[in-house]
């Protein structure tokens, strides 16, 4: 066995934040984090069997609304993307489109074993195995399928993470876009593109890192076609 201490450890340091002059800035940040953790609108992308566990978690038996969690139907208003089950290659395209339309801070939860490692679809040629290779997943809720208690337990863990401000994987998507795009291109082919300008957003919000752009984003720019509005035609 190789010596564990020889494995190189890569630590990333957070960029020092700009000096904040407002004495109440800390209090304000805490309030915002509290609000973000206590008000979570979830977009449940029901891909598989895990979806069946969500209605009991939302309705009278377990009632997620007492924790401030509500279902929302459009990505523009959602905070959490719930992927509940196996992700086929075709589905994954839609999930990525949906994820990129959500306003950050945004969180992804993978429910069921299938999102962790492919689960019982491990040998399927048409199924994406690990969701976290394509999207920055905050939390996995393993199980086949996890019961509503487990789903709520996972939500509470996410709440604690948001409130402490420790984990912010949504920034990772902007900072290491090249890595995620590479995995996406590996699955969908080189001409894969989405309508959302992720690099532009990363630069606009100051989240661009050294790994935002790379060889895969160059491939993207090579194949990228400008978005054209469909012509309205009446037959």
């Amino acid at each position, binding site marked *: 066995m190789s010596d564990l201490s020889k494995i190189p450890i890569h630590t990333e340091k957070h960029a020092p934040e700009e000096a904040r002059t407002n004495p109440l800035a800390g209090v304000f940040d805490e309030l915002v984090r509290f609000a973000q953790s*206590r008000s979570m609108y979830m977009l449940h992308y029901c891909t598989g069997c895990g979806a069946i566990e969500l209605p009991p978690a939302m309705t009278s038996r377990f009632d997620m609304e007492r924790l401030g969690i509500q279902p929302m139907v459009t990505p*523009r208003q959602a905070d959490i993307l719930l992927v509940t089950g196996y992700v086929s290659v075709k589905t994954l395209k839609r999930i990525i489109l949906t994820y990129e339309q959500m*306003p950050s801070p945004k969180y992804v939860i993978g429910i069921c074993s299938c999102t962790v490692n492919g689960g019982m679809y491990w040998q399927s040629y048409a199924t994406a195995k690990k969701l976290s290779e394509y999207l920055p997943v905050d939390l996995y809720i393993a199980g086949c399928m996890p019961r509503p208690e487990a789903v709520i337990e996972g939500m509470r863990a996410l709440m604690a993470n948001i409130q402490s401000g420790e984990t912010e994987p949504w920034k990772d998507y902007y900072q290491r876009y090249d890595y995620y795009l590479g995995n996406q291109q590996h699955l969908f082919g080189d001409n894969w593109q989405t309508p959302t300008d992720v690099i532009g957003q990363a630069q606009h919000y100051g989240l661009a890192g050294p790994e935002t752009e790379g060889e895969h984003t160059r491939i993207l720019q090579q194949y990228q076609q400008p978005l054209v509005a469909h012509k309205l035609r009446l037959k």
Partner: protein
Amino acid sequence: MEIGKRIADIILMPIVAFVIGLFMVLMLRKIAAKLQRRVGPPFFQPLIDIIKFYSKTTQVSHGLLHDIGIIMAVGGYLAAESLLPVPGMDGLSDKGGIITLTYFLMIPSLGLALGVGQCANPNGSIGISRALTAMLAYDIPFVIVIFGVAWHYGTTDLSEMISLQQAQGWGAFEMPLLALAGLFALQGMMGKQPFEIYVAPAEIATGPMVEMGGKYMGGLFVMQCFQLYTAGVLYTTLFLGGGTHWLDFLIKIFAVVAIPMMIAFTFPRYRTEDMLRLMWKWPVLAGLLGIAFVMY
């Protein structure tokens, strides 16, 4: 002194409206939860939701009209609040009157239509066209009710109506048919369940709100607070004699808003054309009969 009081009223009234509106949203969600045998949201949930939406990092704007639409939606109600007399604060109610108020109440829907139009999302366009049709449906009985009440009291001044009602008795007892038609129109105006096809979450992804995220949605949440408050206060002023002091005023407006909520969460929804048919038949009929009784 007079000017100072007016300016203070204009600043204070929307703030009071917003705070009361937050409680109304809480009540709405609690009633829904109780009817479905759930616990429901915590006490500060409506405020927390608004803070969360305003703290979003990414803001997706679809253009200038999209921004202006939200400002019109909130601004229309902000202007309307200064025309609604509450105990101790009259604001501009003696200058504006009920006709100006009726116009102000249409601004939010039109602003939203402008904003949603620029989003170019087909779901949004379907939603807002349904919303404007719904506005056409409930505005006819609403205008009839307003006309009848104004005719009965011989004035369009809301604070004068209140003092007249406190002298002669509530409008709901003098004009029961108009009060009934008004309650019907109120249900449509709040966009609650039998008449909420234009939001239709599962089919057209909440309709007009489909492209609103972050601060835009926060603005719409603020608008919802104002909307509930305005509906409650307007009905109380027209039919329940306004308020002599804050306690009975608050009881009245919360009761008025609670009635449509109770009806709402036990009903499925009507299609747009059915809503139009229903709204132009029964409340209009009741309203016209009510006017006939008031006139003769």
